Each structure stands twice: as C-alpha cells, then as structure tokens.
C-alpha cells in the first residue's frame, strides 16, 4: 500500500540546480498542507522527454523506470513540480502499469543494477494537480494567511495536460485548473492570445537551435505584453528558465524592454501561506527582481 499524505519528491534537474527557491517553496507549501515530503535519494534526470526520448524511446523508458523504482521502494507516490519530469515519469509509469510485457522487459534491465524493480504500485503527480484537485480552491482558503491582488498571465506549458489521453487531467484547449485555484489566492488570470502554445524550449529545440526557440518565444512574449500582467505564472522550471533567459535575450538582442517577474505556482502559494517575500527568491532571478507582492498588488488580510 502506498503511504497516504506522503510524497517522494522528485527534484529533477533544473529546479534543484538552478531554482532552489522553487524547491524550498514546494516543501514549505506541502509540509504546511500536512503532507510528508521524502527525498528521493540517488534519483537521476527523469530523463528529459525532448532530448533523451528522441535518441531512443526504449532506453528513455528504462532510465525513467529506475527513478520510479526508487519511489516504489519508499512506498510513496511521486511528486514533481516540472512538466518535463511529469511528462516522462507519468507516461512511463502508466505504460508500466498497463503493459506487463513492457514491465518484464524493463525489470530485466533494472535487475542488472541490483535492488531495482518496478511493480506499478505508485502514481506520479504534478503539484498543480495536487493543489488544484486534492487541496482545491475550497481547501486552500483556510490554509493561507494572505491574499494578493494581482492580474497574471498563466502559462500551463505543454506536458502537464498533453497528451490528454495519457494525462487525463483537464482539457488541453480550455483548461481551468490553475485559474480556479489561484482565484482563491486573490490572483486573477487574464487570458491572452495563443495562451496555451509552447514556450519554445521543449523537444530539444532550445538545446539545438537557440534562434528557433527564441522566435517561438518572442511571439509568446508579444502576446503576453499586450495584456500587461503583473507577473507570469508557470508550473514548470523549464518554462521558468525559458521565460527568464528569454526575456533577457530579447532585451539584449531585439531591443525589447521586458521585465515581467516569472513565478512558479509553488512560489506564489508559499507566499500566500506565509513564506517571506525574501525567500520567494525573485532577487536571485533575472527578471522582476524588485517586484514585491505587497507593493504592486494590494495585500489583503484574510
């Protein structure tokens, strides 16, 4: 049986190694909500669905299964805050559960490492899904100590919702899970053109052709800039990285003048639950360093 109210926290790569503030905020939020968060020792890269799956899909699955096996040993569902990690682990986990032949094949390889085996006993969860559905806007209300009054551009990213057949979370054309949740935090999502398109980072595009990645991204920014949000809200450290470095790139190379703070759902929720502004860590990011939740937006006591 999987332990209840407990998660094996899958860190991935970009969050722990570039944005530890998201890691800290996630632990803060989950622990305050009463969950036990366990470290997944020896976990590796998920591996990234863009680059590594593109080399060989079977190999990609085995490496992902190694990570899943670590969580199975801990008897805990996996929690991830990244769309890429979620994309990989959720899909592979689902296939392992449904396809016995595949499970046997994967275990054959894992056996070579010793004590690794997948049985298909756990579930892989994304923090946006846990907050949006398990806790819900109805449940967060009495857990927060302040609301912030802000208008934001919500960026879902791609792999959290799609493919809908595999993820089974929300519509990919008109999702509302994040909008409904953040409304309870006082935050209003303002729709913008082509809101659900890709940030341009995935699929190995950013690694291979920075230019192509930036052209896709620049269009995204034009659409966001049209509605002038207080900040950009994402649920994925790779999108986070793209929004951060991308704005910087456009400012330097295309005489743009963007300075939209980029905030992960964990950071936003942590702030509303009482984490100090300083700990949210915008001062360590590239964009919106001076942004204060209390300043630009009127803080309301709850």
């Amino acid at each position, binding site marked *: 049986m999987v332990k209840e109210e407990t998660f094996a926290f899958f860190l991935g790569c970009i969050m722990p190694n570039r944005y530890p503030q998201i890691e800290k905020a996630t632990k803060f939020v989950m622990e305050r909500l009463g969950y036990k968060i366990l470290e997944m*020792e020896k976990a590796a890269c998920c591996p990234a669905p863009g680059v590594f799956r593109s080399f060989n*899909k079977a190999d990609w699955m085995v490496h992902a299964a190694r990570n899943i096996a670590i969580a199975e040993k801990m008897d805990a569902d996996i929690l991830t805050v990244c769309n890429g990690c979620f994309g990989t682990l959720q899909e592979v986990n689902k296939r392992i559960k449904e396809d016995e032949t595949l499970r046997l094949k994967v275990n054959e390889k894992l056996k070579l490492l010793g004590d690794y085996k997948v049985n298909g006993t756990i579930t892989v969860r994304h923090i946006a899904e846990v907050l949006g559905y398990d806790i819900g806007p109805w449940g967060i209300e009495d857990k927060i100590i302040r609301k912030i009054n802000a208008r934001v551009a919500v960026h879902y990213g791609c792999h959290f919702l799609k493919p809908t057949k595999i993820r089974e979370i929300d519509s990919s054309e008109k999702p509302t899970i994040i909008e409904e949740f953040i409304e309870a935090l006082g935050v209003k999502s303002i729709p913008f053109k082509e809101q659900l398109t890709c940030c341009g980072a995935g699929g190995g595009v950013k690694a291979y052709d920075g230019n*192509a990645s930036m052209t896709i991204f620049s269009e995204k920014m034009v659409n966001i800039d049209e509605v002038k949000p207080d900040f950009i809200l994402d649920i994925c450290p790779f999108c986070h990285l793209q929004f951060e470095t991308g704005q910087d790139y456009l400012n330097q190379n295309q005489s743009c003048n963007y300075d939209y703070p980029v905030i992960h759902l964990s950071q936003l929720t942590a702030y509303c639950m009482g984490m100090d502004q300083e700990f949210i860590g915008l001062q360590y990011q590239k964009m919106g360093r001076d942004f204060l939740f209390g300043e630009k937006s009127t803080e309301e006591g709850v």
Partner: protein
Amino acid sequence: MSDNVEKYIKRETKESISNKISEKFVDAGLEKIRACINCGTCTGGCPSGRRTAYRTRVAIRKALTGDESVLRDIDIWLCSTCYYCYERCPRNIPVTDMIIKLRNIAVEEGFILDAHFGLADKIFYETGHGVPANGEGNKKWRDLRESYDLPPLPPTVHSYPEAVEECKTLMKEVGFRDLMDNAKELKEERAKEQEKEEEKADE
C-alpha cells in the same frame, strides 16, 4: 486519349514507394502512421512550424513514402513536442510520437546534432543530470542552494557517486552508450566523405 500523351506531358513519377521507414514504425507499434491522410491539421496548429521551415505533414508524408531525406533533414529537430498535432489529429494519430520515432531512426543512422550529442555524451552520461550543478562553473548555484539552507548538491545522483556509476551501467546495458558511439562514428565517416568530395570538386 492518345497513346503518346507522355510525349507532351512530362510528369515526374516515383517508381515505387519504399517501406523502409514505415516498417520500422510498424515494428514499434506505430502502424497508425498509415492512417494519415495528409490533411495538414498537424501543421496548422504547430507553433514551431509557424516560425520555422518545419512542416509536420511533410515529415510524415516522407516517412510514409520512404523518402529517407527526412532523416537527414534538421527540420524534425525543430519540433518542441508540444503535442498540439497529437491532440488535434482527426485520424487520431499520435503525431508527436511519430516525430520522436523519426528522430530515433535518424539517430540510429548517425544523424545526431552536435548540441544533443554533447548533452548526452558529456553531461548526462558523466553526471546523470541533464542540467548539473557540479563542477567549477556551477559554484554559484551551489551557493544559492546553501543560502536556502539546502545542501549544496541535491540528494540525487549528485550526492552519490555510486549512483552515477549505476546510471552509466544502465546506459551501457540498454545500448544507449553504443547508440551514441555508433552515431558519432557514422557522423565522422560522413564528414570525411564529404571532405573528400569537396576536395575532388576543387580539383
């Protein structure tokens, strides 16, 4: 119609269609590619194709007709795997999976891009992470972690050298290492051949 119409109307025709690529799709359980009617819905919704020369339906068409130039074409590497094509395909084809399969075949044949090879060969193979925090250049990230009261290196493979070895073993055992080495070899061979040809042309 007159028998000698060919004399007046010149048409380029393909002698036969090769199944070489689509058979690999069938082997991988992706026979659905044959349901493609080339309607272009995939291309219409593609955020990458809008800004680059990448046309999803062209790639799928080429795969179906066995036109191997698709494997050499850098276009298939411009897909950001956003899954719009997959979601919207009226024939219910998992289009993104098809593009991934094309990339897998391309890598098998040595068409791997330098940036991706470096990422796999140097970073992923050596550290177990795609974006690492070890090494000289990454000290600032370790410092940042410490300022958050987190250990300088996360409790992942980064903190367990034996786990990095495990990952390396796995990469060797599943054939990932061989795949990379083979791709590199093929790539170098191809570069040499091209050099020779260029020399010839200069003479």
